């Protein structure tokens, strides 16, 4: 169990030593009975409750009271929870949150659980009887850093939380709110769903081509990894006089943000994602990143919930003849940035919200390969990250984060033209609380960063966010004209780290970005757009709570790092942990056209595995073991010192 930090909120009770913090007592209503727990409901007034037991969290949720439908929206830009009358699309209340929310999840008694990705905790809120009043905070539950997704186990016995930066799944008893499990996960976990029998959870990962399968029945359990890329094929290749068996044509899965669970008896978990062809790493490309005709392909992996296996048909990478005829047209309309998914209560339709194309696409939820089974699509305001369906009216509500608009589409309404599919859209732009708005240039930069099919950025339609997922990286090494290159992290690494690029070829960030667009076959951005993009990437910061207290081991690692004998700090120096120089550390790989590389910054190095320009090392420890004499001297270090050095690096 990780250390639980004590966090006080407002005037709330300070529950040090537990994971729960009590907040303000309600003032608007007299409690009907003494609450059994600080997180429990405090008043007996009639408040909206979900249509049916919600199992999975999201940025948007619907509830009902006295025949009226209420939408709750977690707005990450303004750190606000909005209450909206869904029928009239009228904003009722805005509840300020302590930090950026990621998902909310409704309890069947009407309480609203909000994961604060910017605050390493989940807040429990209770609506007032008067829906025009802000929600009242009941308590907050500490979680590992950057809680990104929520789910209930059956019967709402346990709250399940995944934490992106914290690489963890945690569970909390919904009566005592004591932490149950804490399971370490691979990097970038996102959405979570729980099996019907409550014995396991599936977790999507934005990187790493995998789903995690976490048993929920035992303490201290480990996650199993489920490959969701294409299966590799063994090809026979001649190497001089030898015949080699080589794994090839394997495509990685990426952008695994969303999960949806089939509600019926078929036991399917649906995982929208993207299949990535990174190219042949031993052969430099003529231009671009990967020389594949279709380097990124939309996909929906179908998981057999009981068996814990992926249906092979759903990760088939053959080009769909009914989509692009195999001519490799720019993917101007493909869902290359899926962010949210929802299956209707009858289990017939899968709705996926796609950034970049700003569309919601309806697929057949029972298809063996849902990406081939598209039914309809709707244009929506920019940044669809939340979906909720009114099962009675068949109205689909869409929260578009980038435009901060709630829209409603009639899913049963016939569409006249697939190229103009937004007819009938009803919208509400939310109010902007003073002092909480995003800067205009940053907002524009975010849209540009996520735009799919912008031919100024790339000829094949991919977006900046296709590789730099959320401004971080995709953990993938690409074939490029210069050789194999791992996607670098942008978040928090752009200020004071010039020159840019693995070989340090870009003295100015703006020049380096335009060079990257040109390499991707893009025409380049106009100056104002480029400035906006720069403003956006400069605004990216690691989540709050990422700072870790220095333990004795970390302190020892600090000393090892800065010791003259190891020499780490010789090159990784200064505040940004780089000397801005190029070095030949004998790291050139097959396919590299140069031998010197820029010293990368080590800021947030924990979040950027694998390591080296060609991603050859999967972990920091593996890298330290293999590079002594090439990059510092670590061979003489004891196992404990190496462990301490890794512990220190992970705090950077």
């Amino acid at each position: 169990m990780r250390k639980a930090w004590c966090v006080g909120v407002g005037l709330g009770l300070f529950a040090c030593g537990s994971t729960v913090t009590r907040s303000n007592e309600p003032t608007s209503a007299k409690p009907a009975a003494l609450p059994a727990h600080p997180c429990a409901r405090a008043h007996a007034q009639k408040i909206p409750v979900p249509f049916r037991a919600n199992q999975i969290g999201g940025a948007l949720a619907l509830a009902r009271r006295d025949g009226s439908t209420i939408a709750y929206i977690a707005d990450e830009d303004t750190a606000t929870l909005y209450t909206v009358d869904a029928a009239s699309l009228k904003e009722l209340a805005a509840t300020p949150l302590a930090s950026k929310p990621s998902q909310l999840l409704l309890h069947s008694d009407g309480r609203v659980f909000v994961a604060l990705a910017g605050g390493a905790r989940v807040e429990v809120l209770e609506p007032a009887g008067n829906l025009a009043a802000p929600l009242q905070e009941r308590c907050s539950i500490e979680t590992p850093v950057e809680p990104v997704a929520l789910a209930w186990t059956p019967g709402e016995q346990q709250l399940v939380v995944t934490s992106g930066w914290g690489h963890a799944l945690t569970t909390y008893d919904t009566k005592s709110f004591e932490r149950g499990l804490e399971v370490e996960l691979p990097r970038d976990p996102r959405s979570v769903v729980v099996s019907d029998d409550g014995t396991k959870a599936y977790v999507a990962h934005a990187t790493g081509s995998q789903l995690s399968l976490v048993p929920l029945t035992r303490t201290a359990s480990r996650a199993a990894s489920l490959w969701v890329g294409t299966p590799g094929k063994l090809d026979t290749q001649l190497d001089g006089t030898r015949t080699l068996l080589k794994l090839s044509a394997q495509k990685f899965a990426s952008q695994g943000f969303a999960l949806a669970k089939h509600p019926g008896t078929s036991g399917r978990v649906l995982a929208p994602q993207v299949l990535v062809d990174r190219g042949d790493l031993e052969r430099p490309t003529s231009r671009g990143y990967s020389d594949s005709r279709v380097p990124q392909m939309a996909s929906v992996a179908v998981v057999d919930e009981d068996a814990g296996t992926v249906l092979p048909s759903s990760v088939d990478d053959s080009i769909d003849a009914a989509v692009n005829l195999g001519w490799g047209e720019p993917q101007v309309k493909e869902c290359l940035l899926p962010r949210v998914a929802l299956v209707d209560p009858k289990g017939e339709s899968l709705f996926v919200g796609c950034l970049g194309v700003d569309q919601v696409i309806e697929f057949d939820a029972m298809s063996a390969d849902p990406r081939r089974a598209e039914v309809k699509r709707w244009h929506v305001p920019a940044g669809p990250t939340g979906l909720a369906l009114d099962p009675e009216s068949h109205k689909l509500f869409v929260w578009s984060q980038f435009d901060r608009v709630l829209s409603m589409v009639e899913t049963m309404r016939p569409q006249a033209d697939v190229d103009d599919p937004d007819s009938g859209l009803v919208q509400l732009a939310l109010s902007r609380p003073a002092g909480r708005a995003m800067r205009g240039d940053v907002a524009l930069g975010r849209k540009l960063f996520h735009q799919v099919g912008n031919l100024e950025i790339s000829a094949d339609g991919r977006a900046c966010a296709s590789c730099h997922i959320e401004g971080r990286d995709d953990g993938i090494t690409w074939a490029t004209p210069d050789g194999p290159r791992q996607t670098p992290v942008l978040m928090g690494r752009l200020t004071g780290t010039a020159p840019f690029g693995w070989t340090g070829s870009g003295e100015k960030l703006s020049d380096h970005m335009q060079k990257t667009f040109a390499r991707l076959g893009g025409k380049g951005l106009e100056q104002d757009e480029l400035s906006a993009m720069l403003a956006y990437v400069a605004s990216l910061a690691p989540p709050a709570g990422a700072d870790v207290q220095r333990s004795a081991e970390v302190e020892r690692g600090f000393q090892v790092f800065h010791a003259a004998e190891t020499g780490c700090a010789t090159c990784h120096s200064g505040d940004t942990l780089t000397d801005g120089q190029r070095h030949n550390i004998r790291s050139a790989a097959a396919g590299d056209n140069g031998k010197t590389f820029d010293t990368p910054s080590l800021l947030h190095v924990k979040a950027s595995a694998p390591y080296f320009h060609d991603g050859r090392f999967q972990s920091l420890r593996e890298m330290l073991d293999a590079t002594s004499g090439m990059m510092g001297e670590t061979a003489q270090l004891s196992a404990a010192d190496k462990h301490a050095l890794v512990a220190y690096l992970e705090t950077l």
Partner: protein
Amino acid sequence: MTRTTQPSRRARSLCTLALCTLSVGAVGLWAPAAVAEAAPGRPTLAQIPIVSLPRQEALPTPEKIEESSEDLPFEVIIPEDRPKQDKKKHVVNSYGEYTHWLSLRALKSDVCLRYGNASGSRPQDRDQVELYGYSGYSYADQVVSVRAERLELDPSAGQGPALVVDDYFVAPRAGHARFAATTRIPLVKVAEVNRGFAIYAFREPGRLNVVLSAPGAAMITPNFAVNALGCGISRITIDTAGRSGAATSFALGLPEVVAPEKVQDFRAYGQVPMERAIRISVSVSQTSRDPAPVLSLTFGDPSRPVRDALKDRMPRWNEVLGQERANEIEQKLAKRD
């Protein structure tokens, strides 16, 4: 088929297509709901009986055919530039000479010809097949089998819909053809849209065959061939053996229905206008909880490049109406002009 159930949610989604609009109130659209009357939910493969369709290659091929049968469903056309038999020794290189031996053209517009060894460049689902071979080698002397497929949908037969497969042997050099065998494959209707566009299915061991009836349509096949469906039907096979899922997709351009009196306003050699393009996905999948493989058919709108490609390959009026009627129209137009 009697429909007593309400159209499912999926069926209603089909109504995004303009061609659905006429049929909603009448017979409904979605035959899976009809198929599923006995067992609510999606149709499963278990509801589609397994039949045995003899493989063309398995037919006992005669060494030669002395004369042609009567009542062939196709005419045998010998190309004018074909090498004469007495010049068969003429070989231009060590690989022989690639020769167009025969064309077989269906006599009726609803008959599809299939030739198992047809090259990939030639569309298979059409009313004409071309037989090529290498002179100087023995291939031209080999008798080949050609298959004629047609849908039998007449309910008066009392046997339900069927795919009737007639096999013929053809001697390319002699130009003779002989009837070999008939197989009647009962079909299950799995989807229906108005105006003659319907989807049927039958199963073979380890394979699902989807049969489309779409007269006058153009089609993009799963392997990217873009063809006019000359014979109005197409058969697509999915391998379902030993897997927990299989899927394929294709697109159809459906013709505009034109009133007979309006047909005369079109040039006989002009293309039939495309009313609507449909993207169709067919899949079979089974999870641990599914008692049998689930069949899913999905209809959507294709992208603009796909629509444009289909539009370009819509059949011409003379192909749809027949040459005789086309000539009539042209003559009338000529007089009018």
